[in-house]
């Protein structure tokens, strides 16, 4: 038996006399036994096999790539079709997945570059935090090199609930409790390494 065969069998959990004999005579494989057994345990862990939500990829692209919206605007026909698809798909998804009412909801009203737009925030409380479903109406994509950030605030501090870049529906998660941070607002942020708020509020609670 060679090393490749022995290691494959150790990973498979097919340890027998033949494998034992090889390992006892091969210092390198003997050194790797513990590692391969640990790998076998990792292979059985559900974390390794988990699949992401279907919309996670789109959420990431919407979050980090305002350029997507810029590119899409180059073709108005494509943009109209895409918007219709998103609206129809989004509505269908919401109708299918949301059979329960939001625990609370609020509407943020636009100002500055977002004047005339609104964002409806529906909150679904879970044991470890709150899922926030944001549905914008009339909100333009963030200008190139910037993105929107949702904040929860009280008199002393603010905490970020996440970022988004387009006017499409998006889901964010936050662990902060609403009773601790009763006010909400959306700022426009530049794409840089500074995680603090720009304080440039473009949507707020009326």
């Amino acid at each position, binding site marked *: 038996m060679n090393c490749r065969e022995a290691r494959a069998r150790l990973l498979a959990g097919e340890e027998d006399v033949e494998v034992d004999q090889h390992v006892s005579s091969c210092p390198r494989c003997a050194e790797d036994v513990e590692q391969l057994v640990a790998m076998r345990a990792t292979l059985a862990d559900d974390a390794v096999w988990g699949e992401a939500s279907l919309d996670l990829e789109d959420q990431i692209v919407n979050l980090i790539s305002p350029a997507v919206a810029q590119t899409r605007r180059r073709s108005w026909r494509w943009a109209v079709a895409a918007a219709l698809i998103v609206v129809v798909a989004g509505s269908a998804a919401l109708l299918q997945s949301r059979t329960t009412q939001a625990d609370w909801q609020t509407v943020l009203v636009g100002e500055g570059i977002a004047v005339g737009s609104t964002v409806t925030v529906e909150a679904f409380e879970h044991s470890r*935090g709150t899922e926030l479903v944001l549905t914008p109406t009339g909100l333009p994509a963030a200008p190139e090199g910037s993105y929107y950030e949702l904040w929860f605030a009280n008199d002393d501090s603010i905490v970020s609930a996440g970022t988004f870049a387009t006017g499409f529906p998006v889901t964010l998660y936050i662990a902060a409790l609403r009773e601790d941070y009763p006010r909400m607002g959306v700022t426009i942020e530049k794409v840089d390494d500074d995680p603090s708020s720009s304080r440039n509020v473009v949507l707020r609670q009326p």
Partner: protein
Amino acid sequence: MDVERLMGRFRDGDPEAVRDLYALYGRAVLAVATRALRDRGLAEEAVQLTFLQAWRAASRFEGDRDPRPWLYTIARRVCVDLYRRERRHTTVAGEEEPEVAVLPVSFETLWETWQVRVALDELSGPEREVLAATHYLGLTHEEAARKLAIPVGTVKSRIHRAHRKLAERLTHVREETA
């Protein structure tokens, strides 16, 4: 896929490169985040933040480097930050908050999780399928054959081939972490 070219496009801000990078390593990031945080919602938040931070740091990424250790490092840091944030919010009033919250899993465990998931993604679909059936679902070869509607002999040969490939890829893990 030409990873060097992909990272060049990612660095240049090509939105399609985000999707390509996610297709390659999104599952590995999710696996690490799930193992570290043990919460589906938090893990998906970690995936979002990992790609966001990678995007922000992409201009400093050297195109000829292997992006995997770089992305893994970002993912682990994001998990630590989220874990600390969760700890802050779950600390009982009056209880002293620890200055440093350490993830409940070791560095080695997370690195192994990353390597295993990356190695699984390099296998063919049918090979991954039989490994999922036996390792994850705990099925015997016969049960896996029935579930996948293929002969037992095919299950055995696929499993053997998949384990050989995995073992070859994963033995590098020891060398890299040594």
